[in-house]
């Protein structure tokens, strides 16, 4: 089974040379740490920066320089700042190549829910609705089940949706799955996890086609 860092490491392998990438809050933010350093990648944050670098050294933080998770950051050579309007032009206009974000639920049709639990929790969608409605390539990073042990890969989402039919790939602590017309296609197993374990943890239609390899991190 993977921990959060394991999930981030596996997703990092999906990041290709020349990609502009938007990372959501939580596990996705960790992905930046594990991208191969022999490829050229730029990270965009929807609050208005392209070319984000690592966190600043202690004492060098700047209140005017944060990411969409409100964390203090740095920039790399070639970086740029811009306003929210141009930032969402990048996103909506499909100039960002890959979006990685968390989810509470994903359906076998690629619907995603991650912004609201009616009557209980409402943080808002932030930029997520724009991202999922626009991105050509969306990877969801999440645990396979919730704290109550219930599957987060469902036939239908039970929570209010963030977007419909948009998720392409899911990386969980148990597996890598592709969203296909017929349901969740199992691509890889996490180390030490069996196909049976994944079946048990997946409520939506799971497609197991031939031998399923174990992930290489």
């Amino acid at each position, binding site marked *: 089974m993977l921990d959060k860092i394991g999930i981030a490491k596996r997703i990092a392998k999906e990041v290709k040379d020349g990609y502009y990438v938007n990372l959501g809050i939580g596990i996705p933010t960790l992905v930046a740490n594990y991208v191969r350093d022999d490829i050229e990648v730029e990270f965009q944050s929807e*609050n208005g920066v392209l070319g984000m670098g690592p966190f600043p*050294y202690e004492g060098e933080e700047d209140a005017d320089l944060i990411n969409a998770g409100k*964390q203090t950051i740095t920039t790399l050579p070639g970086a740029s700042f811009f*306003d929210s309007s141009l*930032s969402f032009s990048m996103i*909506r206009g499909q100039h960002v190549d890959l979006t990685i974000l968390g989810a509470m639920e994903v359906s076998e049709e690629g619907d995603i829910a991650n912004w609201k639990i009616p009557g209980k929790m409402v943080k808002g969608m932030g930029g997520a609705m724009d991202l999922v*409605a626009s991105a050509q390539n969306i990877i969801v990073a999440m645990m396979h089940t919730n704290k109550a042990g219930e599957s987060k890969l469902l036939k239908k989402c039970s929570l209010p949706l963030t977007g419909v039919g948009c998720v392409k790939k899911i990386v969980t602590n148990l597996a890598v799955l592709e969203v296909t017309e017929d349901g969740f296609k199992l691509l890889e197993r996490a180390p030490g996890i069996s196909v049976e374990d994944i079946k048990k943890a997946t409520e939506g239609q799971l497609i197991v086609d031939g031998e399923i390899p174990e992930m290489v991190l």
Partner: protein
Amino acid sequence: MINKKVANVSEAMEGVKDDMTLMVGGFGLCGIPENAINNLVKMNVKGLTCISNNAGVDDFGLGLLLHKRQIKKMISSYVGENDEFERQMLSGELEVELVPQGTLVERCRAAQSGFPAIFTPAGYGTEVAEGKEIREFNGKMYVLERAFEADFAFVKAWKGDAAGNLIFKGTARNFNPAMCGSAKITVAEVEELVPVGSLDPNQIHIPGIFVQRIFQGEKYEKRIEQLTVRKKA
């Protein structure tokens, strides 16, 4: 040169009344108009509708207005990190309209630019689109979203001049530019009010035509919401 300079925040706030709709710049606590917000608290205007990406935190930014129940309705994209907000919202004391972030900024820009509405893909198939016109263009679905109408816009810039020209710094730019000229009156506060002619005309982010009042802000706290650092090797 048309002079937009006012003496201080009190003069800049002239005309702000109960039940008005206000745009407030910033993302999280980054780039928020601290002087204007603090003055709204002092003025104790009530029944406000605030259009702002976030709602501050419990004891800073718009959270100060929430705490004093000055806000009737928030129009925002993300309101986490604010317990009082969540309490008022879940109890129904506070009206909340949650808007996708890209839609939020573009509804500001539409007002700035004389567009009545926009078609955006954000929110299609979700409760955000309920009751709104949906249309297909080239096989993709879009939601019709209307331009905002606001009485005042409060923005914060890094540098500005008496002509109302503004330059923002880093990610403190965020929603501020799109809110300039999007309300009946735009009030800009700046960290540094510089002499007219000292800003490079080629590097101005917002020309003064979008700003009605400008003043030199004071005592910026510029609080950091999530301090994340690494150790020096």
